[in-house]
């Protein structure tokens, strides 16, 4: 069990690094009219909701802070908000008695929307010049829409099932 969850944590870090790498490729330096979904946030939420015990908050904080630094965002702003909402969604996943996919998706959606709103509010309160809100609103919508696909990919590509199934099996294994 320990080894398996460690493998998944390492896999998570690897995926995050690959996605950061893809994002900074200098393929097109023209400002974009539309934005792609934030797949990084999607993957992180999938992991938080499906492996709530396998994603330590320190790991999440460090990864989000690294993203802030590399992507030239205000350092710490996105990190603190995203870490908070990931922690919240982890608790939702752990507390729920049953966690069907629809509820999982809605939890992720609430997290994404909360991140969007909190970032905008904090940025405007601390007088940070942000690019137009529309870009981030669109990005959030696309991220929510992309969530099922990312979850499906993680489910069938990496065998990442809902946490209750896997951890129930794991606890059986521990007891015997």
């Amino acid at each position, binding site marked *: 069990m320990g080894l398996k969850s460690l493998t998944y944590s390492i896999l998570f870090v690897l995926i995050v690094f690959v996605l950061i790498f893809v994002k900074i490729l200098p*393929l*097109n330096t023209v400002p974009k009219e539309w934005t792609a979904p934030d797949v990084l946030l999607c993957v992180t939420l999938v992991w938080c909701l499906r492996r709530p015990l396998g994603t330590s908050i320190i790991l999440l904080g460090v990864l989000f802070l690294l993203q802030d*630094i590399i992507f*030239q965002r205000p350092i710490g702003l996105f990190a*603190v908000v995203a870490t908070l909402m990931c922690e919240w969604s982890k608790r939702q996943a752990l507390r729920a008695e049953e966690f069907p996919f629809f509820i999982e998706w809605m939890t992720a959606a609430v997290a994404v929307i909360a991140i969007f709103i909190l970032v905008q509010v904090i940025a405007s309160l601390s007088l940070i010049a942000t690019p137009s809100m529309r870009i981030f609103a669109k990005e959030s919508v696309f991220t929510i829409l992309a969530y099922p696909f990312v979850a499906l990919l993680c489910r069938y590509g990496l065998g990442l099932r809902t946490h209750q199934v896997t951890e129930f099996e794991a606890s059986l294994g521990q007891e015997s």
Partner: protein
Amino acid sequence: MAQNTTQYDDYLTPIRRLLVWMVLLFLIAVFVLWRIDNPRVERFRAVIIDAIIPNMNWAIAPATTAVNLVRDFKSYAEVIEQNQELRRELQRMKSWKEAAIQLEQENARLLELNNLKLNPKFTFVSGIVIADSGSPFSQSVLLNVGERDGIVDGWPAMDGLGLVGRIAGIGSTSSRVMLLTDASSRVPIVVQPSGQEALVSGDNTLNPLIEFLKDTSLVRPGDRIVTSGRGGTLPPDLLIGQLVLDPHKRLRVKLAADYERLKFVRVLRDQSGEKILGAGNLLLPKLKDSSPKPTHPLVD
């Protein structure tokens, strides 16, 4: 389902709660620090990026090349048309070249007659674009040349033809170019031939806005836009692009630099401008205005 409640209770041990608070407080502290002492934290950011990204170049370069290969392959279909187009263009350019040579000779004669001294020609450092900013928060690219190669903050960066942006943030082996399209980019310009001065301010679109133009009736779409050199931030007479009107009748610049394929960038050695050494000087007002040499930060 007792299973889950115990899991949840286990999860919320006091230690874990404390950990959550500590991580969140740490991140909040980082954000507040960034907001208060921006230049210093930005330099820290440059150092971190400098430590990571140039080392990843072995992977970034082939990946970029591979994607561009696929794109180029798609455009092979139009090769014949493109070829003919280029031939026609070349023909037109030849006549322009003749004219330019004649003008250059005439210009040289006249300059000699007047005994006029022009700005010295710039030398430059060429760099390759190794990374993008990856988020809409900033329009900037990372070059593979840095402090080690003599790059200084504030120097202008051009592609072969036009201004691309200027250096904002340097590490020892990498430097960041803030593009003209960035929302915080402001460049003093002159619209030729009318000679009016204005500002080109980026707004996250491909065509930055022209602001503070006194008399809009004197300019027409197609007018050349060059830097004015005001404020000592950039040298004068660097080509930026052409004036265009957008659908809302606002004046914008069609940039001369090719932003779609930004690969090689020249960083001009600009010795003229105001120098900023250390982070403290960005915040403090000048103590003496008579001192020509760069002042050093008070605290460092």
